[in-house]
């Protein structure tokens, strides 16, 4: 059964067709890669799927439910988790604070009960912290819990963001260049982590990624975007040899 299905997804900014009729689907338990040269529209595609941008045409279907017009924040309780190219955390706050922010939609006490200091809110805050510690220890980040995110090395910031997204209890992860700023060895370790996350937390993943060895190793299926249109799709090793894809990355001979 497909988890995510995008049909004819298009968006236009003025005269620019940033996305043109993109069809993409992600099946249960798959890791799907989305690659393409800079400016191909990959992040724009994520923004359309999350309804940060309102698509001009087309639909987004999640587990059989048409969610094209569903507000971004209402996707989180349905299992969406998203990371950003340049770390979507509050950098002036600590890793632990960000873990609490991430668990926002799981918090059962109301906003006013929290402000009013209801006893239940204190108890639940402790539970949130405990859950955050479990995730941080899983990610090997416990000793950084009181460090401000902005003061950490970039690679650790990226991992903290993944930890935060895990705090939302996701079923479907959308990762935007998770290994940018990592060395090849670190990217390899990240691949191990991703495969482990999928197995242990039963996740389905769609990720934008440039690091070819990682894509080849972990992805079940790859889509290639170029100038807002789908150029190719297929198994990673097929894509690697696809003439049009090679041309798009290296420039065409004419």
């Amino acid at each position: 059964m497909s988890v995510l299905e995008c049909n004819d997804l298009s968006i236009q900014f003025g005269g620019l067709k940033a996305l043109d009729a993109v069809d993409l689907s992600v099946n249960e338990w798959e890791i799907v890669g989305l690659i393409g040269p800079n400016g191909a529209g990959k992040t724009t595609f994520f923004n359309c799927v999350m309804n940060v941008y309102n698509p001009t045409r087309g639909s987004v279907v999640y587990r059989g439910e048409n969610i094209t017009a569903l507000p971004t924040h209402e996707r989180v309780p349905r299992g969406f988790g998203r990371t950003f190219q340049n770390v979507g955390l509050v950098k002036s706050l600590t890793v632990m604070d960000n873990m609490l922010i991430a668990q926002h939609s799981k918090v059962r006490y109301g906003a006013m009960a929290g402000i009013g200091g209801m006893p239940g809110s204190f108890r639940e805050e402790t539970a949130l912290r405990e859950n955050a510690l479990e995730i941080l220890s899983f990610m090997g980040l416990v000793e950084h819990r009181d460090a401000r995110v902005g003061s950490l090395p970039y690679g650790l910031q990226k991992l903290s963001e993944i930890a935060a997204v895990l705090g939302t209890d996701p079923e479907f992860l959308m990762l935007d260049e998770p290994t940018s700023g990592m060395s090849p060895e670190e990217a390899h370790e990240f691949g191990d982590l991703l495969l482990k996350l999928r197995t242990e937390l039963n996740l389905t993943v769609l990720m934008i990624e440039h690091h070819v060895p990682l894509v080849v190793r972990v992805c079940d299926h790859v889509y290639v975007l170029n100038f807002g249109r789908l150029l190719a799709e297929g198994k990673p090793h097929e894509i690697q040899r696809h003439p049009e894809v090679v041309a798009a990355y290296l420039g065409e001979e004419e």
Partner: protein
Amino acid sequence: MATIEMTPVPAAAPDERSLLPLLDEGKPSARGWLARRIVQAGVIGAGLALIAVNPPVLQTDRVTKGLIFVIIGFSLHILLGYAGQISLGHQAFVGVGAFTSALLVSKGLTFWVAIFVSGATGALTALILGFVALRLKGLVLALVTFAYGQVAVNSIFAIPQLTGGGAGVDALRPAGFEGDKAWAYLVAGFLALIWLLDWRLVKSKAGRAIMTIRENEVAAASFGINVVGYKILAFVLSGAIAGIGGALFAHHTRQVAPNDFNFQLALVFVLMVVVGGLGSRPGVFVGSMFFGIFPLAVPSDFVHYGELIGALLLLLTLTMFPGGIGQQLKPFTDWIAGHPFHFSLKPQRESGISSGGAGVRP
């Protein structure tokens, strides 16, 4: 990047070793905790004693005015410090609260109900501005809040039936609190309540949501935070506290007139919060106290120096000490909060306040 450790996984088998003791790591010992509470109680006690003693410069009614400014400072701080939204029309929220309470009390309603109605009308005034702020940012928002304040002051406050025209409306203090000292303790009580609410706000989900929206709206939404709802909540909370502050303002002077709420007052509010230090309650307390008391405590010839001092302090804050007074108090406030005492004379470029920065720096 550190090595990714793949060891303990509590997900499958519920872990018998709880991680909870980690939460207590770094917390002070029982004696350290007691020492901190004693110092805290001492500071609060000294403040309350100041009201009782009524010394020459810091007379009780001046301190009370300062306390009311602190309440208004906390109100503006929710927008400026936590939500990162500027308001140059805050005097309108305060004024609406002031006239609401004065009018209701003069019609025979009890103060204890009127002050909460003031909170509601203040919240309503801010709510309307909140919807405008959903679409605007930065300088344009600043100008719109300025215009909003001016329009409110020059239209609503100009209705003689509501505000008594130029003469103003009488605002009697509640029975039992007519005297300056009793009134001062009542205002201090309101401040204590609002201080506690503000503390719980930043320690619970609403405050975290509001601060995340300040940093990155898209990221906030993808953590499940309702950006529109929490932005509006920030305005409503700010307006409600401003309304209550306004009611206290009216009953403090026992009379309130439209002229009390000019644009200059809105500027003083912004000054006292920024100089006090975004993200620091003690900083905003000291800053608001200073700007509330200064014009009353100096001879009338020197009152206009207050603006000069305010401008100089603002320059100092923006250029050298972005954390304002709160940054200077940080070694002490951190200690009170349970951290070890750490003091350094070196000015910190990075303010280190956990929730600083509101896009007010040029």
